[in-house]
């Protein structure tokens, strides 16, 4: 569990950048993709794309596999699922607490 929860913060930070969100969406639509292929579709250099892929890799969102001279990136859905799970759990906790606060204030009058 600790690894999952620590990863959530990294996932949120990684996805705070719109370019990285685009990369994740692109990867969601294909099995694998290279930094060059992504750079063709984005108004940034291949080096910049590689940096973003590195950040996504550190957040556990993508994995890289060398195939000959290319590195192919693929999405790991577990990190996103962890982040979504965190949001659902924390959201439910606050719904419960705020409901309790409402009831508390109503009782005080």
């Amino acid at each position, binding site marked *: 569990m*600790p690894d999952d929860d620590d990863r959530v913060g990294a996932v949120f930070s990684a996805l*705070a950048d719109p370019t990285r969100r685009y990369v994740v969406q692109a990867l969601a639509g294909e099995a694998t993709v290279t930094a060059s292929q992504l750079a063709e579709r984005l108004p940034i250099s291949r080096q910049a794309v590689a940096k973003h892929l590195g950040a996504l890799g550190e957040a556990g969102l993508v994995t890289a596999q060398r195939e000959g001279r290319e590195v192919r990136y693929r999405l790991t859905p577990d990190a996103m699922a962890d982040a979504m799970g965190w949001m659902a759990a924390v959201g439910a906790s606050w719904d419960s607490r705020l409901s309790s606060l409402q009831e508390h*204030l109503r009782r005080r009058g």
Partner: protein
Amino acid sequence: MQVEREVVLPASAAVVWEAITDEAELSEWFGADVELDPTPGGHGRFVDDDGSVRRAVVEAVEPERRLRFVWWPEDGSGGPSSVELELTDVGAGTRLVVIEAPVAAAGWGQALGRLHARCSTLVAV
């Protein structure tokens, strides 16, 4: 990315502020037991109804407007989050907006830095 919830409460901002900062009152509605020093750098300990315990460090206090703290599971079972509670007078009551987001490494470092500074001044006394 963050979790955001809001509610309009049938009470004045002063009453709601008391409810979210007074540890005796927090203990009545938040969970099983709450200790909180609602000042910048102040410590907190929140025990939920399910027995889970979180430690906290207060980051910002604007009376009747905003309370922000960082909290984390006492048993280390998860990472730190920033929690911000914002109060707005809406005439018939007070709107309370809660935002919780995981803390990036840099933010966590800042909170710990402030805690360390506060502890240092206490020890000096």
